[in-house]
């Protein structure tokens, strides 16, 4: 546990220093949002992926640890998806001239956000925890299955209604230092997520133990 803390702390230093390096790069100021946006998006998808996977295996093996992992990952995914959803429009306003467009990836993340909101609402509104775990796992799995459909359909929808103002500057291959910054961002966000994810997971384990003891002492 402690090693992870150390790692998170260390990475955190990297985080700090590298972002200061990146601020020196002078090519389109707004483009710097990119370095939090893309890693956040990647982390959110990673987290939701872990969550869906753990949910699936949970229904199969019924190991409580898998359920805890799924929930911890889902919570992290929600945090990082929120970052992605808020930083995206901030960049979009400058690059595209509008805060929100139904850009496929943005739309997909928004819907994922709501699917996982449902995930937590289902969990918190069931009296029987075992039932809540199963329900939440079902939500996560159906959500994951629906993703390809959602993705295809929003792409199709966009091609039907092309946004007239949006000129998408899909930047050419990035210069080396930007690439370095981007990859650092990716690594830092991933490690930060994993570190916090493990804490969240441990928290859930402790909570289960506390519940168990409370039940035992009550009996």
């Amino acid at each position, binding site marked *: 546990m402690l090693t992870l803390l150390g790692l998170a702390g260390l990475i955190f230093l990297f985080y700090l220093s590298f972002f200061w390096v990146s601020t020196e790069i002078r090519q389109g100021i707004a483009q710097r949002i990119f370095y939090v946006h893309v890693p956040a998006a990647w982390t959110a998808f990673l987290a939701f992926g872990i969550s869906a996977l753990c949910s699936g295996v949970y229904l199969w093996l019924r190991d409580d640890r898998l359920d805890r992992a799924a929930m911890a990952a889902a919570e992290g995914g929600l945090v990082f998806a929120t970052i992605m959803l808020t930083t995206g429009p901030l960049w979009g306003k400058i690059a595209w001239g509008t805060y929100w467009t139904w850009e496929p990836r943005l739309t997909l993340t928004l*819907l*994922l956000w*709501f*699917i996982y909101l449902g995930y937590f609402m289902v969990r918190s509104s069931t009296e029987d925890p075992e039932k809540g775990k*199963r*329900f939440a*796992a079902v939500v996560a799995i*159906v959500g994951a299955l*629906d993703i390809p*459909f959602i993705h295809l359909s929003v792409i199709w929808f966009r091609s039907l209604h092309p946004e007239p103002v949006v000129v998408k500057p899909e930047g050419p291959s990035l210069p080396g230092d930007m690439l370095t910054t981007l990859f650092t961002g990716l690594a830092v966000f991933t490690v930060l997520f994993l570190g916090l994810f493990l804490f969240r997971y441990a928290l859930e384990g402790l909570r289960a133990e506390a519940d168990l003891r409370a039940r035992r002492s009550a009996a």
Partner: protein
Amino acid sequence: MSLYLRQIGAIVRKDLLLELRSRERMTSMAAFAVLAGVLFSFSIDTATVRPQDVAAGLVWMTLVFGGLLGVGRTFHLEAQDGAFQGVLTSPAPKDAVFLAKTFANFVMLYLVSLLVLAVFALFFGLDVGQNLRWVVFVLGLGSLGFVALGTLFAAVATGTSMGETLLPVLVFPLLVPMVVYGVGSTDRLIAGRPLAEVEGNIRMLGAFALAAVAAGAALFRFVVED
């Protein structure tokens, strides 16, 4: 296999008979459809928008909201008087129960969707004549996909303390593909475009409906087990 089908048939018959006698869900869905048509007619400023252009989207929205009204109560009655325990302890496998419930819901929602189409055609002066067969087919596919997801999550929502209020949060994000493909194809069919233009849409809609039914049948047993 024939046993499986007979089990499904028994539950479907029970559900439809129940509905035929009480008329609870059909009445509320049908009334909702007509009233939504009235309200939508007033919500459109005909000076700026041609009603025909937005009608397809409104048909689908009415279908989604009205469907939620009826499908959300799939397990309500049975959960209240404990009869669902009986259904579950019967020898019928859980996926048969799900398929039966879905089919019963499908029959009801499909009838309602045809009513919605008729009401909107009347109120908005739609000319669906030339592609009527395909519009009806598309509505059927859409209803099937909706009902499959709706039934699965109605079972989930009934098990929570929030009940049916939870259903939209769970189902709406998942319905995006259905609305996109459904509206896309209905829109063009009503406008009298040739079928070839929307064939891809209809295929995707069918794939979505099939996937929803399959996922529901596979996952339903985790929702209702005890």
